[in-house]
């Protein structure tokens, strides 16, 4: 079998565009899933009973469903529920990823908030802070620093898992590479190129997050 690596270069535009979409999906998903994860975690910890139950149900549902199923579900069911028939595959994929990662982040934040000792809340309350002020100024900032390593691994997983939205024809890296493969039949070359791009992008991200964690870690 002869290998023809020129096929990768020939289709660089498609691969580049796909890579850009993958990166965009990762950033957009986290931009939604971090704040939403905090909100869900806080509701689950401090909300009134029905809200707590709803937040718990949401987290347990999406944490225990395969992501690919959520992607399909978002593709077929979301338009019916929301009446938004014109939702693009990209928006649908983003919704599916955000629903999934928000559930994970909510659990991470909940653990982080629970890990801050009670005395910190009491010190904030003794100053006259409201519960919300204590959360915003004292608890959440410490919790976020503490769970950065977990968020980092969620981030790296997410970067790779964006490939799952290729099943609904979002033209991210995996989908683009598979399209080229289908046109050229250069399976090995395209899979290798895809692997190289994912790894080369994923590894520095993981290292970058490690660095951020060291830089902003709180010593006690």
């Amino acid at each position, binding site marked *: 079998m002869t290998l023809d690596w020129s096929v990768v270069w020939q289709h660089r535009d498609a691969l580049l565009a796909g890579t850009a979409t993958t990166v965009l999906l990762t950033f957009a998903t986290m931009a939604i899933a971090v704040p939403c994860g905090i909100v869900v975690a806080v509701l689950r910890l401090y909300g009134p009973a029905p809200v707590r139950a709803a937040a718990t149900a949401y987290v347990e549902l999406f944490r225990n469903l395969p992501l690919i199923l959520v992607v399909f579900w978002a593709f077929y069911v979301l338009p019916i529920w929301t009446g938004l028939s014109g939702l693009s595959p990209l928006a649908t994929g983003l919704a599916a990823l955000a629903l999934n990662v928000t559930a994970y982040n909510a659990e991470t934040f909940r653990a982080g908030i629970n890990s801050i000792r009670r*005395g*910190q809340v*009491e*010190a*904030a*309350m*003794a*100053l*006259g*802070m*409201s*519960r919300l*002020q204590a959360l915003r*100024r*004292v608890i959440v*900032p*410490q919790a976020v*620093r503490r769970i950065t390593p977990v968020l980092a691994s969620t981030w790296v997983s997410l970067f790779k898992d964006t490939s799952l939205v290729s099943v609904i024809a979002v033209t991210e890296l995996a989908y683009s590479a598979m399209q080229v493969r289908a046109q050229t039949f250069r399976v090995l070359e395209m899979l290798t190129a895809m692997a190289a791009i994912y790894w080369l992008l994923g590894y520095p991200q993981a290292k970058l997050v490690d660095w951020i964690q060291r830089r902003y870690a*709180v*010593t*006690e």
Partner: protein
Amino acid sequence: MTANSATGNGGDAARAMAGAPCIVRYQGVIKRFGAFTALNGVDLDVHAGEVVCLIGPSGSGKSTLLRCTNGLETIDGGAIEFEGATLPRDERALRAMRRRMGMVFQSFELFPHFTALQNVAEGPRTVLGQSADAADARAKALLAKVGLADKAASYPSALSGGQQQRVAIARALAMEPDVMLFDEPTSALDPETIGEVLNVMKALAEEGMTMVVVTHEMTFARRVGDWIAVFDAGRIVEQGVPDQIFDAPATDRTRDFLSHLGWTG
């Protein structure tokens, strides 16, 4: 039954500040944790400008009473009055009252993600809505007051226990409280740093700050305290001026407690 009757109140005549207005008044305070009764009818007055020291064995209810004072714990019976008004149950009203009470914890509880300066400025900024400049200027002055002007930019993890506790005192003072509550402020400290914290507290007392101090430092209680309340099993077994409590205790419980500490007067 008031505290003054059966338990031997050490003579209000000797109480220097007895004529000053009452800042905190505890009346028959009861606090239960499940089946355990932590406070079983506590009566005590704290007058303006007084240093009231709560002493007694561990688990006798001293810290619990202090934590009830600013509503960190809710009482199950009796009443606590702060500056003439009953401590409210409503969160918002309680918060307004907490702003006027400073609290210092045994374990400091500085905010580890803030510098010393930010810790002190945090209350005025977030709770009182002061500008960053005003809050920082005042925080600097307070850090200087507790002898830590040069540590403004340090994080708590870089400070010794005694330094952390002095920052915590400055943090509480930044709210310009009418009373300071100290919950065993030196119990978590190395012996060599206890003195620096007690000196700050002594200076505060000399300025006329009203203070309620839970402490095991009997020398401090005797020298700085104006009024001593001896706790045992959720009750005040005896209260009076230091000379009476330490030199002529009226109850066996007080004598036992002091002799366990090796107090010889």
